[in-house]
């Protein structure tokens, strides 16, 4: 009664006395009456901000899928997922929300699963009430009490294996007033993977329990696979924009030293909590932990996201890209080296890999058949766009490789062009072409594979190019 009276009194007198907005002493008291279905997003996307909306009863629908995916070229892996992706769908809530969680285990799945959300205050973080057999759905609800960025994961026995197969994701709890506006928001989560075969070994790779126990990861990746955030999958921003990254680390074992090459984090919500650190180069994200980082991008270019435990980045896959477009700002950074870093034909910094292709080159082809197979993969990645699927090229722009007199005339010249690029006029099958082919960052093996593929396809003269031949040209 007394409370009612106070509120009424407050309402009637608010005009004159400018009583501040109603605040609750505890997030437990925030009412959540209206129902709303939560928007869930696949990485690297995040749902729209909760803004100024009031707390709601939030329905979260999440489906568990066990499905085969590709870790990197030719390496298959059976992922266990929340929502069909690794990491699982991003859940965005606000303090005071009452989340009604529907966990659905697809009938084709082999195993029971559950979910432990670190944002839950309650036994097992929800794991206790969400243990669900294949073909069933469990429903439980919880109130989000503490703002922050939290990991969720499966906690069914054997817990480590469920996490190692990709069963983790992030749930954001925004404070009552919401987070400050930014221009771009992204969802990135690191995880370590353990396969029976070594890094890069092709085929369907089973999970290796012993390597997981020994913490000897074959892959350390962002968003579930090598290359999930590179090339066409890179995240983007424009010069002058503020970028906020929601970062998680699913583990199961390794902690992450998250770093963006060429950026300084203006703000870091340390461990996803309320402490804000400023001007940070590298932030530590524990396994089963998170962080929010924010920075403004002042200059254009490609900024590389890495785990600064650096062999993981260049040898195990923990590498992503943020591509920033816009006008140069030479006061901040002289543009001179900008392109050189990523276009290896220029400048002196030729060795810096721009994608996770390194593991690929470590697998030598063991037979002519393999050389053809690997060569085709490289062709489709590197040459296809200009020279086209059947080597037919593009008239007046890119010369054909099919039945090409120019190609067939001189194998060493062909190797040289792949290694060092070619500019200027050439005549192929009677047609003149004048365009630029950039030098390719390929290993000797890869050059041998791709040229063998080209020479043994589309009516060419069936030369087999060996790594030794490539080496000879490279060292000339």
């Amino acid at each position, binding site marked *: 009664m007394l409370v009612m009276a106070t509120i009424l009194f407050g309402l009637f007198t608010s005009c004159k006395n400018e009583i501040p907005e109603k605040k609750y002493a505890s997030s437990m008291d925030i009412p959540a009456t209206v129902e709303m279905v939560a928007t869930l997003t696949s990485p690297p996307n995040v749902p729209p901000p909760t803004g100024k909306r009031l707390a709601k009863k939030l329905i979260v629908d999440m489906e568990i899928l066990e499905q085969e995916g590709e870790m990197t070229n030719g390496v298959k892996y059976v992922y266990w997922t929340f929502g069909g992706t690794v990491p699982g769908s991003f859940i965005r809530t606000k303090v005071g929300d009452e989340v009604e969680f529907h966990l659905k285990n697809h009938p084709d799945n082999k195993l029971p699963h559950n979910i432990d959300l670190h944002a839950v205050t309650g036994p*097992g973080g929800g794991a206790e009430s969400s243990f669900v057999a*294949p073909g069933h759905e469990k429903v439980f609800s919880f109130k989000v009490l503490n703002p922050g960025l939290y990991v969720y994961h499966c906690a069914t*026995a054997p817990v480590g294996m469920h996490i190692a197969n990709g069963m983790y994701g992030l749930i954001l709890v925004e404070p009552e007033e919401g987070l400050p506006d930014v221009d771009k928001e992204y969802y990135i989560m690191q995880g370590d993977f353990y396969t029976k075969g070594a890094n890069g070994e092709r085929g369907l790779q089973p999970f290796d329990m012993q390597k997981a126990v020994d913490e000897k990861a074959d892959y350390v990746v962002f968003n579930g696979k090598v290359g999930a955030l590179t090339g066409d999958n890179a995240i983007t921003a424009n010069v002058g924009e503020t970028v906020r990254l929601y970062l998680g680390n699913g583990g199961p074992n390794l902690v992450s030293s998250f770093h963006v090459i060429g950026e300084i984090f203006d703000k870091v919500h340390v461990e996803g909590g309320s402490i804000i650190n400023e001007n940070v180069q590298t932030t530590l994200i524990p396994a089963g932990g998170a962080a929010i980082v924010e920075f403004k991008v002042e200059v254009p270019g490609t900024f590389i996201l890495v785990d600064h435990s650096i062999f993981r980045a260049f040898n195990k896959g923990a590498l992503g890209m943020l591509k920033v477009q816009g006008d140069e700002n030479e006061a901040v950074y002289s543009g001179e080296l900008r392109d050189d870093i990523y276009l290896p034909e220029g400048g002196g910094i030729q060795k810096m890999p721009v994608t996770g292709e390194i593991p690929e080159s470590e697998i030598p082809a063991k037979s002519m058949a393999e050389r053809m197979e690997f060569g085709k993969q490289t062709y489709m990645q590197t040459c296809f766009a200009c020279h086209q699927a059947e080597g037919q090229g593009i008239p007046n722009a890119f010369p054909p490789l099919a039945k090409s007199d120019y190609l067939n005339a001189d194998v060493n010249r062909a190797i040289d062009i792949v290694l060092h690029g070619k500019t200027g006029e050439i005549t192929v099958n009677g047609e003149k072409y004048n365009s630029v082919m950039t030098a390719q960052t390929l290993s000797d093996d890869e050059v041998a594979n791709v040229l063998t593929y080209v020479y043994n396809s589309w009516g060419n003269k069936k030369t087999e190019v060996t790594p030794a031949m490539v080496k000879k040209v490279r060292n000339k």
Partner: protein
Amino acid sequence: METYGKTIAVLACVLIFQTIHSQVDMVQIKGGTYIPLYGVDSTAVTIDDFSMDVYPVTNVEYLEFVRKFPQWQKSMVKRLFADGNYLAGWENDESLGDALAPNAPITNISWFAAKKYCECQDKRLPTVDEWEYAAMADENMADARKKESYNQKILDWYEAPKTFDKKIGSTFKNYWGVYDLHGLVWEWTMDFNSVLISGESRKDVDKDSNLFCGSAAVGASDLMNYAAFMRYAFRGSMKANYSIKNLGFRCAKDGIKI
């Protein structure tokens, strides 16, 4: 009274359906003492001699059963005994349709149905201990649990999607002469939920609880036996009226000579 009822039920099966085709292939499994996954030395379990079906029960065998016992047909079964997924995928009450291979294991079957099927063959479901005891054998050894390759083989199966439509006998014959304990489907056991794990694997460290799971697996007899952890976890997620696409069954019998 209960015994009386049971006798009548069994009798009913026998009297009316003497002609029902039953899986004739059973093998005798010599009893012994073993320490289950969840046990310590003091919890060794002694198994009496028993017989076990060589293969899981197949689609076509179960089809024959429901033809004789209409109360177990897809549209007739009581919801108390089988949930909505019961015999999912069957064309109708008396036909499998083209999607299901006749000689693949029957799945989407509830515990009640599996139990009744076995009773009508004058058999019963195996206990968890019997099943685990028989399933710890590989091709050559009665207890292969320490063999890394054996565990890996089982784990590989757990990660292979959609194995339920393979034919019976397509995996290996184990030491006892039993096929397909690993590699096709999970199997119901008589007391599938007697080893309780709650949904929260890491909490099951209480003194009250038999099974120690996941990261808190300190009490398990073999820390590397993750494959068995997954079986116990699976059983723990079940209720008797559930019907699941990856779950079938086979029958057993007390240790009489066959």
